[in-house]
């Protein structure tokens, strides 16, 4: 369950980022790659625990899942890696593949709320 470590890192990051903007954080948008080693559902549960007692107490986590992408080592065609097992390149049949996407683990946006009394 390393998702709790990730959630704590996430919250520290958001607090730092939010410091430059007025208002309250209502939602945190993140991109999560299929090969990041982090499970979205586990991260969502961990976030609920980790946000307790911080200024993100009422902030929601919005996860955008990013599929893994590979680039053929021979003909450089890019394709989606939809399963965990490797595939051969549909264009040239080469099994040599470099993972070029799917490791994303990043904060992309904050929803900030301005309160007017």
């Amino acid at each position, binding site marked *: *369950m*390393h998702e709790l*470590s*990730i959630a704590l*890192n*996430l919250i*520290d*990051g958001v607090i730092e*980022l939010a410091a430059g*903007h007025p*208002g309250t954080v*209502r939602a945190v948008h*993140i991109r999560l790659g299929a*090969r*990041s*080693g*982090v499970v979205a559902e586990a991260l969502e549960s961990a976030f609920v625990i980790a946000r307790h007692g911080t200024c993100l107490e009422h902030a929601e986590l919005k996860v955008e899942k990013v599929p893994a992408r590979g680039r053929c*080592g021979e003909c450089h065609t890019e394709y989606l890696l939809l399963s*965990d*097992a*490797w595939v051969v390149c549909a264009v040239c049949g080469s*099994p*040599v*593949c470099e*993972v070029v996407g799917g490791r994303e*683990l*990043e*904060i*992309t*946006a*904050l*929803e*900030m*709320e*301005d*309160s*007017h009394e």
Partner: protein
Amino acid sequence: MSSTRLVEVRRNILKQNDQVARELRDQFAAAEVTVISLVSSPGAGKTRLLEETLLRLRAQFAVAALVGDLATDNDARRLARSGAFVRQIVTGTVCHLEAAMVRDALVGWDWQSLDFLFIENVGNLVCPATFDLGESQRIVLFSVTEGEDKPLKYPTIFNTSDLAIITKIDLAEVVEFNRASAREAVRRVRPDMPLLEISAKTGQGMEEWQLYLEREHGRRATRKT
């Protein structure tokens, strides 16, 4: 009344860990220390392999090990019998090592004069995949008793490792381990991954492993000892 606006940002969630890992990698490179991390499930034989490896390398190289464990220093004490310097990192409830733990474990001793530093991660094939430790190479181990399909079940750790080692190969026949399908499983998650079959107990494959390490070290450093 209130209004909500979207502020676009961009920040790696593990920025802090990645930053520390980058700093470590730079320091290791500057000191010409080859840093090898070992990951596997619990009981795959990391400690036993490391014990033999330290013994063999010690004749020619300055070697040391950092050992991550949830609790107890049993592994560290076992490894210390090899005569190499060993430092324990007790992670408590944390199921993996993080770069800051490695950085803290390097304080107060002369790691810069090493040729090899081994880092034994906590027994776990999931969580360590996400955390860069600044190592030169990450080696993933699985034993013949765990079954041939380990790579298919834990593709991320295999994808982020540089070499796979099948351990306890002396037991292959007894447990009816199918080498061909294990190789196929590794190939399916990572076609170009080098693979070694080793028994730390009988010594099978140890020479090849030692050559692999020496080659890795040779690519990075001029020998110090």
